[in-house]
């Protein structure tokens, strides 16, 4: 990859507001730069602004403020130029339910800038997502997972250089999910730039070169999984012991209803101090748990006061 290549996607202070000046702002100033061949994941809870951001990148709507460039073009105004090079899988896109799988795919292929005739292309792409055995089935008789795979097939039909996938594996059974991951991995390896949103952290961990965690329309973390996890503290937790805790260097200690949580950037050192103290004073630490930061802990800490929420759930 040449570093001074223009980025495939670039946004500056991107904003998207619904319902005019005083309306709800779903995207509040996002700066992104996605390079050619990258697989980039957008993570976030429901309402974090993932789909709203995707729709602007895809050129379905113009941003309320800020700029967006895809393949060097304005995706709304220069739609004709960029759209043929993009593949888009919406979170929820429909098919005419009285068409068969093959008819729906043929219709779509007929609208794309691809060599004709399209029959072979349609067959191949249906086989890729393992839905070719359902080619003659009416779309309305497909299961949710099969529809999702047909969705993916249509997004791939035009051999896109940039692929947008909004929750590509939601509703899939584990086997189809693996299959979809493998397919996305292959496209990535072949040089396709992929932007995907997902609820599944393992999906992002497995697939993404880099990711962004969105929260309330802003990017809270950006980078590789290692980058994102690196500056997040490790966590030690246990039920409140009989003796007050000693001073532990460089930690934050929170005492909750159910016990104590210690956040530290030096897990081994803090743990040694803690255990030495417990040993010397004969203190038992019931429910002791220690964990380094993972994408999940980072995600949950951003998504809200996760730990106490999880604890409450367990105790309820």
């Amino acid at each position, binding site marked *: 990859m040449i570093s001074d290549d*223009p980025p495939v996607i670039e946004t500056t202070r991107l904003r998207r507001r619904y319902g005019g000046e005083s309306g709800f702002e779903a995207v509040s100033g996002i700066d992104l730069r996605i390079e050619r061949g990258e697989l980039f994941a957008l993570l976030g809870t429901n309402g974090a602004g993932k789909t709203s951001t995707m729709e602007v990148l*895809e050129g*379905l709507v113009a941003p309320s403020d800020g700029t967006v*460039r895809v*393949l*060097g*073009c304005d995706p709304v105004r*220069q739609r*004709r*130029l960029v*759209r*043929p*090079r993009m593949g*888009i899988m*919406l979170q*929820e*896109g*429909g*098919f*005419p*339910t*009285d*068409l068969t799988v093959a*008819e*729906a795919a*043929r*219709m*779509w*292929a*007929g*609208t*794309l*800038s*691809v*060599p*004709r005739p399209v029959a072979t292309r349609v067959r191949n792409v249906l086989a890729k997502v393992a839905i070719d055995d359902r080619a003659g089935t009416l779309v309305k008789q497909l299961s949710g997972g099969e529809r999702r795979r047909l969705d993916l097939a*249509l997004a791939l039909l*035009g051999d896109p*250089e940039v692929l947008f996938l909004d929750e590509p594996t939601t509703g899939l059974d584990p086997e189809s999910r693996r299959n979809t991951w493998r397919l996305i991995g292959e496209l990535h390896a072949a040089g396709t730039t992929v932007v995907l949103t997902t609820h599944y952290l393992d999906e992002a961990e497995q697939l993404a070169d880099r990711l962004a965690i969105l929260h309330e329309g802003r990017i809270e973390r950006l980078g590789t999984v290692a980058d994102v996890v690196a500056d997040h503290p490790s966590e030690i937790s246990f039920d409140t012991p009989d003796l007050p805790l000693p001073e532990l260097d460089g930690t934050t200690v929170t005492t909750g209803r159910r016990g104590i949580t210690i956040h530290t950037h030096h897990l081994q050192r803090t743990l040694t101090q803690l255990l030495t103290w417990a040993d010397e004073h004969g203190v038992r630490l019931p429910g002791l748990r220690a964990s380094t930061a993972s994408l999940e802990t980072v995600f949950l800490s951003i998504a809200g006061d996760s730990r106490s929420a999880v604890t409450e759930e367990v105790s309820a």
Partner: protein
Amino acid sequence: MNGNVKASAAPAETRPGVTPAHRLAALARAEFTLLRRNKLLMVNAFVIPLLPIALLIPARSGGRVPQEAAVIALALLVLVLLLFVVYYNLLSSYVARREELVLKRLRTGECSDAEILLGTALPAVTVALGMVLLMSLVGTLALGLPAPENPIVLLLAVLGGAAVFTSLALITTTFTKNSEAAQITSLPVIGISVLGLPWVADALPQSVGEVVPYLPLAPVAELTMLGWLGLTPGGDRVAFAEIFQLAWQPALVMLAWLVLGAMVAHRYFRWEPRR
């Protein structure tokens, strides 16, 4: 920086040129398959338009159709084609495609908005034109109707009428929740269209009757009478060249409806279901 932007804007690989005609054909083909699979829409498109012409069979005397019967049959034919084949069927299709999220998906592809709407409309408009052609052949050769006096004006009437009623269908989608609701929401347009029929208009009080020529179906009916029978609204017979001179006024009314309809549709049309 500018150089970079330009370079990357050029396609990295050469993509085959696909014309709007390709895209329209793909959409129209799918839409026609869907029409074939929907019994109600099939009856609307192919059975109901036969009824006005069937009326001519008992009305014949000595192998010719009396002028009043021809007027009624042709006015009904245009009404049925525009209301059932074009307006109702398109309203139903547009709403169904919106609710199925098909319109939303199509907008993620290469088709422009206009192509999506036009591609969906093509089968209905083609059926309407085909029916007029079929009826002019069957009517002239077998049922004793005169041959169209000015086919150009007749064609203009049907095409323009189809465009007006397509835009009315687009406007009606904005207050139609699903394709079943179309049975109710289509009533206002059907109502004002029926008022545009010549003999219905004649029966109205004069103050109401004055607006009739400006209703959406009226110019279509007027142009059809001119183009096919060479008959003016006043009942005079005119020939080919004169027909053009008389056609511009109803054509203007039609154009006005088309512009108004397109503007309203453009402003209020929704591509996705209401959340």
